[in-house]
């Protein structure tokens, strides 16, 4: 039985977009910080994407879908009029330490950190940095793709990625130290 154009469109959307569900949800979780928020955000992203599916060209849906996710996140939190924390703002108080190496905790320390520790450390990053770190280091997007998704110049992406990774490594090292995974004399 031939499908109607509407069914065809829906089937094509589902074939392209649903395989990305875990990735979209995961990024939503790192943006929003809670399971409930991440679920709502993911659902909103898919509905918006479906509505705008005609504007999608090409066959690689990931950057497009993630750009919609970002917009859904921005709109959602703008509507709530909570204390504004600017998603696109780079914090002026950064944690950079001059001359520090950036490799973070040692391997055995890292092995001791459970997933939840690492996830909390990511959630502790300023939002603008957190987004690029997740897009690059979890989802594997290239700098140019991240620039498209976040609507930022590629240089801004690189700057945020550099600083976000650096702070993440430091947070993990601090966390490991506080949790007693590393002895004081190892510092």
């Amino acid at each position, binding site marked *: 039985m031939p499908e109607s154009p509407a069914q065809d469109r829906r089937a094509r959307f589902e074939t392209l977009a649903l395989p990305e569900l*875990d990735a979209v949800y995961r990024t939503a979780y790192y943006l929003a910080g809670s399971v409930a928020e991440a679920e709502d955000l993911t659902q909103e992203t898919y509905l918006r994407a479906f509505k*705008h599916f005609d504007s999608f060209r090409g066959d690689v849906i990931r950057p497009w879908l993630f750009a919609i996710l970002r917009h859904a996140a921005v709109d959602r939190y703008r509507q709530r009029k909570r204390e504004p924390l600017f998603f696109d703002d780079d914090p002026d108080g950064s944690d950079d330490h001059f001359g520090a190496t950036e490799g973070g905790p040692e391997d055995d320390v890292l092995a001791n950190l459970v997933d939840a520790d*690492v996830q909390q*450390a990511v959630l502790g990053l300023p939002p603008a940095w957190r987004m690029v770190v997740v897009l690059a280091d979890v989802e594997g997007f290239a700098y140019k793709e991240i620039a498209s998704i976040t609507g930022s110049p590629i*240089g801004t992406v690189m*700057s945020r990625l550099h600083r976000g990774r650096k702070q993440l490594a430091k*947070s993990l090292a601090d966390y490991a130290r506080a949790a007693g995974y590393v002895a004081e004399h190892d510092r």
Partner: protein
Amino acid sequence: MNHARAWMLLDRFLDGELDPDARWAVASHLDDCPDCAAELASRARLRAALRPKLASVTAPPDLRRRIVAELAITPDPPRLVADPPADPAPAPAPTPLAAGGRRPMRLALAAALVAAVFALAFVTAGWFGQNARPDPMVAMASDLAAQHHTFAHDETLLDVRGSDAQVAAWLDKELGFQVRTPALPGYELAGARLVTIGSAPAAQIVYERPETNGPSAYASLVLFDPNGNAGPTLDTYAAQEDGMSVVAWQAPNCRAALVAELPPGETMTLAKAVWNDV
């Protein structure tokens, strides 16, 4: 390639984001430099270890079902008529470059981003380990070093290239305050780009010093805050990070900072050459 430059490019090397020449230059430095090689290995191990810990977050089982159910009752929207593709405008002088922030976006993405604004509110989850606020000058110098680190080495990331006059004219138009592009001894003007310092527009003027053997060295002169009321009171300040040093000062018409891949003393000497010239 010297150690400081290679060190700065380690992340981009690891990300596969360097052009073949730079990639080769970093790779051959790594053969000779145990410090860079060890740092690269450490960052690679960290990333490889983090990825599965972060990717273990997966969608709840019934989320897919809910989404599919909702899609099934979502009516098909009216067909959209796409705008004609944006014309990547032919280059006037000075040349806005296609790469970097001003490159044309894919049409589909442009449509999706049409409602984009730059200052967007977002609520973060609870901050993990509120950081003690560092000295604002340390933060600013670090920010400037990061700007230099990411922008200066790749001329495709510049917004404008050309003669002094072309660069100055472009900055005048884009920046909203007048700047000069002083000559930096030993360096040639490479171009400029707009950056943001403390959420206000700033000019980053990039200079290149060709090396006889090996890649060029770069310096960035950052001009910002013409009214002198954004950010910390500025005394002359010097700091060092990742083989770069930063000197910041209050110039006659705005604040200025020079980032160079030099020891602080040499950057200071260079800064003094343009001290009142910006």
